């Protein structure tokens, strides 16, 4: 335990803590920059409709939205006829002006009402849903892809754990101490694992904290209220985010053990950074590795997207445990290896 605490202290040196604080502040500040995500509906109209339709899904609300959708369809459908009628003076200016107002209103509401109908049909299918202003949550979760701040923080923290000992020649004194071989290597791995987990979790938590200061409502509603988020059961949006946070943090922690193994192979910070960056970050950026078996095989798979409804936590935990054991074993063998 003492060795573990010393290793943690070495990882979180005062200079490193300053860099980490800067990374977390930058992450917080960047959350205030609008995401610029496009939506198939008008946000203002959506908010207006939710004032009327907000709350639990009912058949009446669904029928009302269907009726409004039909009404909008009818208004838009007769547009050419009404223009023609007005031009041929078959209707008065006042009648045309009234129609024109209805037409523009219908046009502006069309996409939003269609979206609400689509959403109502989805609600009707799964049952027990609630209408609420979920755009911010959709943007927030939709933007939770690969986090470069977490990547930077973890790689920056973990690379020196073993590389420092090799590059500063400290290893020779360490491995000739009674507990300097297996015990120390395991302590270092545990410290790297813990540091990576805590740091990644802090980055994701800061992102959530920033989101709360901007929006932060409705976190208690079930995640299945978001269109397309079917199959997660009744878990709330907050719980969904924090479960995802734990999954990603655990993946980063295993990534840290991988980096440690690479460190003992290369014994050099630059090569370790490169060789760690490629499999972890690239696998998250190239191809679709977040589906199927890849999400359990490659760390990039889970780090690139939020966990899917069919995500198997047992398989994921098992895969992480296996990977941790393999990387740790490689790390220990290389650390103790005599030239």
């Amino acid at each position, binding site marked *: 335990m003492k060795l573990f605490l010393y290793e943690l202290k070495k990882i979180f040196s005062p200079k490193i803590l300053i860099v980490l604080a800067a990374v977390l502040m930058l992450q917080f500040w960047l959350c205030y920059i609008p995401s610029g995500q496009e939506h198939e509906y008008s946000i203002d109209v959506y908010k207006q409709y939710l004032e009327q339709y907000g709350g639990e899904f009912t058949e009446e609300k669904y029928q009302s939205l269907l009726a409004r959708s039909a009404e909008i369809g009818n208004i838009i459908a007769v547009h050419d006829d009404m223009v023609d009628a007005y031009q041929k003076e078959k209707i008065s200016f006042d009648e045309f002006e009234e129609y024109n107002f209805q037409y523009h209103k219908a046009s502006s509401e069309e996409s939003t009402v269609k979206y609400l109908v689509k959403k109502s049909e989805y609600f009707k299918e799964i049952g027990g849903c609630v209408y609420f202003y979920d755009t911010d949550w959709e943007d927030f979760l939709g933007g939770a892809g690969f986090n470069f701040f977490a990547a930077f923080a973890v790689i920056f923290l973990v690379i020196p754990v073993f590389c420092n000992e090799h590059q500063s020649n400290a290893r*020779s*004194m360490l491995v*000739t*101490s009674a507990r300097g*071989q297996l015990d120390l290597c395991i302590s270092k791995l545990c410290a790297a694992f813990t540091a990576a987990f805590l740091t990644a979790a802090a980055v994701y938590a800061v992102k959530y904290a920033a989101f709360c200061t901007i929006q932060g409502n409705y976190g208690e509603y079930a995640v299945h209220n978001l269109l397309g988020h079917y199959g997660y059961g009744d878990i709330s949006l907050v719980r969904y985010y924090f479960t995802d946070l734990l999954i990603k943090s655990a993946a980063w922690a295993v990534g840290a053990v991988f980096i440690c193994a690479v460190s003992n192979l290369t014994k050099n910070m630059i090569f370790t950074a490169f060789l760690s960056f490629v499999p972890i970050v690239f696998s998250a950026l190239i191809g679709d590795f977040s589906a199927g078996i890849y999400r359990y095989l490659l760390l990039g798979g889970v780090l690139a997207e939020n966990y899917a409804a069919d995500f198997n936590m047992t398989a994921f935990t098992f895969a992480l445990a296996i990977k941790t054991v393999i990387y740790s074993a490689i790390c220990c063998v290389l650390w103790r290896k005599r030239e």
Partner: protein
Amino acid sequence: MTLEFKNVTKKYRSKTALNGFTATLTEGVYALLGPNGAGKSTLMNILAGLLKPTAGEILLDGQSTEKLGRQFRNILGYLPQDPGFYPTFSGYELMKYYAALKDIKRPEERINELLRFVNLSDDSKRKYKEYSGGMKRRLGIAVCLLNDPKILILDEPTAGLDPKERMRFRNIIGKIGRDKTVILATHIVSDVESIADCFILLKNGETAAVRTADEILDIVDGKVWENVTSAQAAEEYALDRANANIVKRDGEVLLHIVSDDKPFDNSEPVTPTLEDVYMYIFNEASEERSKE
């Protein structure tokens, strides 16, 4: 306690760094002498368990040090030339960290005792990066002694130290060496002249000589000469000869030569020093290398 080196050999592809080193060591200070590339560090790294010998083995009281593993490391203290201590740790923190590594329970008393021994008590709270070269070396020794090792390996411990620090360091080693096996590698002869009980001279990976302090000078007995000469003649002679140096004594210029044969008619044999032994053995090595 007996430490036995049996035909220890280390080869790197075509280069033999250490060839069939055989020796038996007991308590005392052993000076490992030789120029750079002689195989000193290789030998110490093999003993410390950092290098795997290509052939041969090291036995501690008849048991292989490799097989003893942690048991051997428990009685070992190793100080490399650059120990790579953590610059942001204070001296005291470093001692505590290594105490944990050496599995020492309640180390505070031992740490304070050792810090007093190496005269660092007043600086124990200062960060390692603020220490002078001599202080770093002394702290290194204190760290090595934490587990009260039976075998202490010191690689070039006085490299880069000023004369005062070197003298202080010699005194420390002298005290330690009474009940431990201290193996000290250096190419600075004066550092070990007064404290070593035995000298192991290595050249080109081969054992050139293993002698006790009483025997070591026998190697050059009757082979060290001095003659009075002019400053110019001395300079001309010594310029391209590694076995000769110029000594100024009582206003006279003396040519100090280590040679099997009497170099000049007026040369007189003088009492040899360890430096003469070093010059005699390693001058040959350098000559052989230059012939190659």
